[in-house]
């Protein structure tokens, strides 16, 4: 049997390590500006709104809504072939920032713009868990 091609494994950097450490503990973290209260994701050294220096990591609620999505029928690489068809989405977190994700835990055809979703982690390695989202308020199978 051919060796299985691995899915991309993020390599945390100095800037993103707190995010990935949170994910490993199944906690979704984003940044909040202590001066102006703005939430942001991706991680950055300063606040994008007031450009202040006091950005802090906080635990996000994990609740979000689907901003847009697609059902992928042709995989980006053989590593995702077994997942077909899979949903790639952009969700808007309850705190405001947007993020790319996969919608899991339901048939792709059930996904809709505006759908409430909640974070669910996929443990890709011992060190790296990837935040994904599933329909809100449904028990894990």
């Amino acid at each position, binding site marked *: 049997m051919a060796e299985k091609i691995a899915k991309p494994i993020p390599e945390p950097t100095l800037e993103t390590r707190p995010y990935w450490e949170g994910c490993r503990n199944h906690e979704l973290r984003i940044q909040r500006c202590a001066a102006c209260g703005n939430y942001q994701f991706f991680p950055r050294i300063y606040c994008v709104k007031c450009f202040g220096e006091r950005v802090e990591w906080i635990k996000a609620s994990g609740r979000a809504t689907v901003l847009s999505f697609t059902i*992928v029928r042709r995989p980006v690489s053989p590593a995702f072939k077994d997942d077909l068809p899979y949903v*790639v989405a952009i969700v808007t977190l309850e705190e405001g920032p947007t993020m790319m994700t996969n919608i899991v835990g339901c048939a792709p055809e059930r996904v809709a*713009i505006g759908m409430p979703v909640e974070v669910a982690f996929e443990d890709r390695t011992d060190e790296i868990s990837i935040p994904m989202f599933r329909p809100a308020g449904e028990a894990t199978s």
Partner: protein
Amino acid sequence: METTETLKNKVAIVGAADTEVGVVPNLSATQLYVKAAKLALEDAGITKADIDGLVTCTSFVEPFMYHAEMIAEYMQIFPRYCMTVPSGGGTTLAIMHHAASAIATGLCHTVLITMADSQVSGLSRDKAIEAMAQAGHPQFERPYGPPIPAFYAMLARAHQHAYGTTDAQRAAVAVACRKHASLNPAAQMRKPITIDDVINSRLIADPLHLLDCSLVSDGGAAIVMTSAERARDFRKRPVYLLGTGEGHSHEHISQALSLTTSAAKEAGERAYAMAGLTPKDIDVAELYDCFTPVVIIELEDLGFCAKGEGGSFVEGGRIELGGELPINTHGGLLSHCHPGHPGSLFSVTEATRQLRGECGVRQVAGAQIALVHGQGGIMSTHCTAILGSERV
């Protein structure tokens, strides 16, 4: 809108040419760059010694750290202005913007812009698709497995949700491009298609079907630009740069502030302001069409119709030859060719030929003013150029 510079009427295209496109196994990426350059110099009626500026985009297949310098070395030319610009599909027009600025400010007098790649023969279709997907953020996007069509499918879905845009409307863009390609012997895909053909082609990333997606190609194009004063002394009638502008809104689509309005709006407004023209003045538009929904969003953001009306605008042959606003008269990225970064330089060479009246059966009768738009990344980098057969 405040205009911080004006290049209006100061610079002209005096040479324009494409290599053969499609599947070109007998030429490497670098050879395609240099062949395009040679053809453009011949079109201009000058030699490589007459060039004192060179701008290129880099190549996926044969990348070099200092790409323009490598091409200069390869051609044994010794420019005083030499630069590589990488901004995806927006690169071409951003390069024209830089080159025009260099000419207008006297950094150099005659610039060669050449671009090519060999995405089929040098890379294979699967490898090309995988390489292009590196556009996603390595930590926050790529782990989710989005191929390039998925990024654009999310834009299409958002537009559909907000404005009721349909599969058939997106398909009308592909049909128009293919119709024009059928009139262009150089195009990669020439067999006419119908709206049903597009809708019935297999889904790649909902709601985009195979025929909503552009081609993967080999090919190169090049242009020669010089000052409007010098332009009168070249072999063919000059095509003047009337206005140009850029807009840059994000790098990664998951960071975009809007999925339905792009920085094509700012790019277009800046170009119109410089030219002193409006969308009504445009006779032919060569728009970036990597995927069909992009054209619909660009038509709105460039002011050809109101936001949300792009879907109905493209229906009924309005964007076809003989229609109100013919677009992508060579066939576009959807049907002429798409070798990657060079994509919209083929729009510039086509606009140049249209304004010279060289297009034969696909000529837009009496075309005097053309708009060309390029976008790169995932609706990230935008540049618009307005070209004219006369100064305005």
